[in-house]
């Protein structure tokens, strides 16, 4: 990922998450280091105070170093060998476990796999993991795919999207309402865009083209709307727009530059006539027969509908 990409950041409430995010960002800047201005750009919704508090915490914990380059403050990640340094006094088993976890990268590794790789007894392994965790050298992360499965990774590594689920998850829970609201708003945006084209006399092609929007435009609209506490990327919005395509409300075409364009469309048919009668949506239609216990003569759905 290009370090200048806007980083997704969780809401301010989760301080440790913020710390981790900051670490991962600073890591990406490498030996050059990140300036205050860089951080401000990447975390637009952090107040300066907040940023300073988090930085101070991290410096105190020894994860980040602060340097002065040409009058500017730059933050650099402390050499990762710090892990090794800390491990100096540790025994071989601990070193092996640490190595295994380090290799797993941002995907993490499951405790069972660590056991297989290290050939350690479960009790011993547990002890070691606890200790490493206590020293803030590794951390346990729950995966959204399997909520019971914990994976371990180095403390300063940002977990992969496949583990956190990206913007749609908050503490392993899928944010149904959030997604639904976004879904509605995206549709509203495109719907409005389409409505503005009505009465356009520039010919049907112009009308149609005016109703297209790229994910970028939609993303901008959603950001300006301010309904999301989380920064949403274009890809996130595209995922939402795709769900609308599956809802049959949008049409997707490939644009000339290879991206996708979306447009609100109307269904080809009015709601079918079958469902105008209660039987069309009846939950017990398979059990309904005449003569029988459930039958149209005494059916309450029909009673309601007819009266």
């Amino acid at each position, binding site marked *: 990922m290009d370090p200048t990409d806007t980083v997704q950041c969780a809401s301010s409430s989760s301080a440790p998450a913020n710390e981790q995010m900051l670490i991962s960002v600073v890591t990406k800047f490498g030996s050059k280091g990140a300036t205050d201005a860089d951080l401000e750009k990447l975390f637009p919704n952090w107040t300066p105070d907040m940023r300073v508090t988090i930085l101070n915490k991290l410096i105190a914990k020894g994860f980040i170093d602060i340097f002065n380059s040409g009058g500017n403050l730059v933050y650099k990640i402390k050499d990762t060998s710090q892990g090794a340094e800390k491990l100096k006094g540790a025994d071989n088993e601990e070193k092996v476990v640490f190595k295994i976890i380090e290799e797993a990268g941002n995907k993490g590794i499951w405790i069972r796999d660590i056991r297989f790789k290290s050939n350690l007894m479960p009790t011993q392994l547990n002890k070691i993991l606890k200790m490493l965790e206590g020293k803030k050298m590794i951390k346990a992360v729950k995966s959204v795919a399997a909520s019971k499965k914990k994976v371990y990774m180095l403390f300063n590594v940002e977990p992969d999207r496949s583990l956190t689920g990206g913007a749609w998850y908050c503490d392993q829970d899928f944010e149904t309402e959030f997604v639904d609201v976004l879904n509605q708003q995206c549709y509203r945006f495109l719907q409005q865009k389409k409505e503005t084209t009505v009465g356009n006399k520039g010919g049907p092609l112009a009308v149609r083209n005016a109703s297209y929007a790229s994910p970028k435009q939609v993303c901008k609209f959603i950001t300006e709307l301010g309904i999301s506490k989380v920064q949403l990327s274009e890809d996130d919005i595209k995922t939402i727009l795709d769900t609308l395509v*599956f809802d049959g409300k949008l049409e997707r075409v490939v644009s000339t530059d290879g991206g996708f364009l979306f447009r609100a*469309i*109307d269904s080809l048919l009015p709601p079918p006539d079958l469902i105008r009668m209660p039987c069309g949506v009846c939950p017990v239609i398979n059990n*309904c027969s005449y003569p029988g216990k459930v039958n149209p003569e005494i059916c309450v759905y029909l009673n309601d*509908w*007819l*009266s």
Partner: protein
Amino acid sequence: MALSYCKLCSLLLTEHFGEVIGKVAEDLQWGPKLLPNIVSSTGLSTAKVKKALAILIQYGFVRYEKSKCPWRAEYIYLPEKVLLLLRYQRYLELIDTKYGEESRLLLEEIMKYGSITESSAILKVVEVLKKDEKSTSDSVIALRNKFHALITGRYLIRCANPCKTEADEPNLSSVPRLTLIEAELHRPAVIDVNVLCKAAEGQTCKPEDIGDANVRWRLNYDRFHQDMRDEMMIDAMRRRFDDNAAELMKQLLQLMYLRTEAWCSDSNPVPVLELKDAISKKSANAYLSQYFEQYLKILEEDSCRFLTKVGTGDVSSAQLCVNMAKAILQLTSTAIENVIEQRFGMKAARIFRLVKTKKFVEQEQIQQLAMISDKEAKQITYKLLQENFLQMQELRKPAAGSGPNKSFFLFHVDLNLVVHTVTEMCHKAIYNALIRSRSELTNHMRLMEKHERLEAASQLLREQGTEQEQIDALVDEWLSLPERNLLESVKKSLEKLKTAEIQIDNTLFLLQLFTYYQHLTMPKITSKKKSQIE
């Protein structure tokens, strides 16, 4: 034949033609039978069964054929024709808008009798007109022209007649063979108009004198269905784009019929230039003519794929094809998605579309792509699976021996099966509506009878010249207020149920079209052309 389908057809027949006919038809639903077999299994008298069969044959609900022993006919039930009874209302409306009221009356007479000669249809309508005091001296001629218009419009078709010359066949069989020459299908019979006029004025004359005694006409359902199908496609265009696009579609369909048989799955190409000409000439729609090319482009590029352009290059050489089968496929999918949306909710429709687009997907992918929480996605998927809207395919991993991960499950959509499911639902819903109407009627039998008697009485009084106010006062006296309210509500219920039946039949129509095209495009049966002579 599915049970719900059989039940529906027999019920329809019973409602329209009475118990006996319903019973005979029900007896035939298991397969062709000989007359004595019907008699013995229904327990009706031979005369009654014979009469019932004659009526059924006249309406085209049953046909007969030589059985294994050549001097005996066996009777074959055609339930799909029975179901069309629900659609008669639509046919009448269609003719009414296209040809006007008199044509509708003519059609109504043909429907009443199933099949009828031209002259008797005309005479009957003249009588109706006389009653309403609308008949004029030249109404016979006018009606005859209307009738011919219906024939040339192919809405009517000749019934087959028994072979006249038995000479070329060894006289083994006494079962008449029905034959019809293709050229005669839509050729009006020669009628002695003078005799007909006289008959219309009330003079008695022998049917032989009129000259069309053995030329009977019946409805050509395919033609009606063709119109209904076109209307549906045009409406779809209107919904998706605007009136101009609908107009373009309409003109295109008309041009298509010049060179393509109405029920092909794909049309033969129509030159774009010709379409352009037709539009600028026939429809005084300047906007459409001005932006003709653009409209063509957006129609062609739309995801519904009703048209395709063949031949590249400019307008002068390009040609257009109408993808009938694809269009119907699109419309059917849309209808089914709508049904799912209403039955199981928006998210279920999303999952259904998703699975349909992706062909084969795993549960996990469904959750990720549909953006629905894990639990809910599972719930919906399995609900759809249970109700037959989704299918599941198990794939075994070749290497894995045992354990929970040895196979994975893919979901997919088999539209044929889904259409089948929805068709069953439609049958059942219509059946339920019919049963309910019947029970409404029987529950309030006394009231209805009273109402009928009152109507008859007040009609009588009116004819005797009693003032309308007086009659109203009398009726008020006879019917108490609660009775009147009840009567109103029963009537409303019946009305509602009736509309529901007809509406559901609309859905059914689309599904039938789908099934037809599906059979047509299946490679094996392509040679089986839909013949117009059943």
